[in-house]
């Protein structure tokens, strides 16, 4: 799976994204978050635990229980501030 980070989240992690293997540990968005926090440690836990965090799967907003598969593009970002 392709995982992307944007704006303040990208800056705090200091990476634009990463390739994560899709396994039973990453079956849905919440599982993926738990997995990322486990492999990275802080600040992943703090940043991905923010209740304002937004998640998209294949460029559509998704909830924490959205199922994931190997070809998915998942992105984490803060509330939008364009316009």
């Amino acid at each position, binding site marked *: 799976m392709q995982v992307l980070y944007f704006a303040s989240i990208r*800056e705090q992690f200091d990476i634009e994204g990463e390739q994560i293997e899709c396994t039973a540990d990453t079956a849905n968005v919440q599982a993926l978050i738990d997995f990322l926090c486990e492999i990275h440690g802080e600040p992943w836990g703090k940043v991905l635990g923010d209740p304002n965090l937004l998640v998209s799967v294949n460029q559509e907003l998704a909830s924490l229980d959205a199922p994931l598969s190997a070809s998915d593009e998942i992105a984490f*970002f*803060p*509330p939008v501030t*364009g*316009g």
Partner: protein
Amino acid sequence: MKRFVSIQTEDFSIELETNQLRTATPEVGGIATFTGLVSDLNRDQKIESLLLEHYPGMTEKQLEQIIDQAQLRWNLLGVRVIHRVGLLHPRDQIVFVGVSSRHRKECFEACQFIMDYLKTQATIWKKESSQEKSEWLSARESDRIEQQKW
């Protein structure tokens, strides 16, 4: 209906955009536009620059969906949405929304609707720099309220 969506670093010309809307169909009776600019002040801080980042692909999809919704609600003849990204400075143009229709009420309402939705749904983020600091802006509660009125 003719539509155009662009996320770009280059500036845009209001004249060219409105001309596109004006000449697209002969029955156009009115064109409403909104242009957002980089302000020089935010919460009493003098702004030096604004860095705009977006999610390529998703932003365009979201904007297309917003235009779809507007098209369901109003009789529109044309819609053009341009949003700049990259490094901007006070007085620079950030965003353009132009809507043409037969009657003025429709284009006014659709233009405001698109801006209100763009503000809360398009995957674009601003980082503001003043002399003191540089920080990502927080989403405004007032923008959420404006969007929910529709």
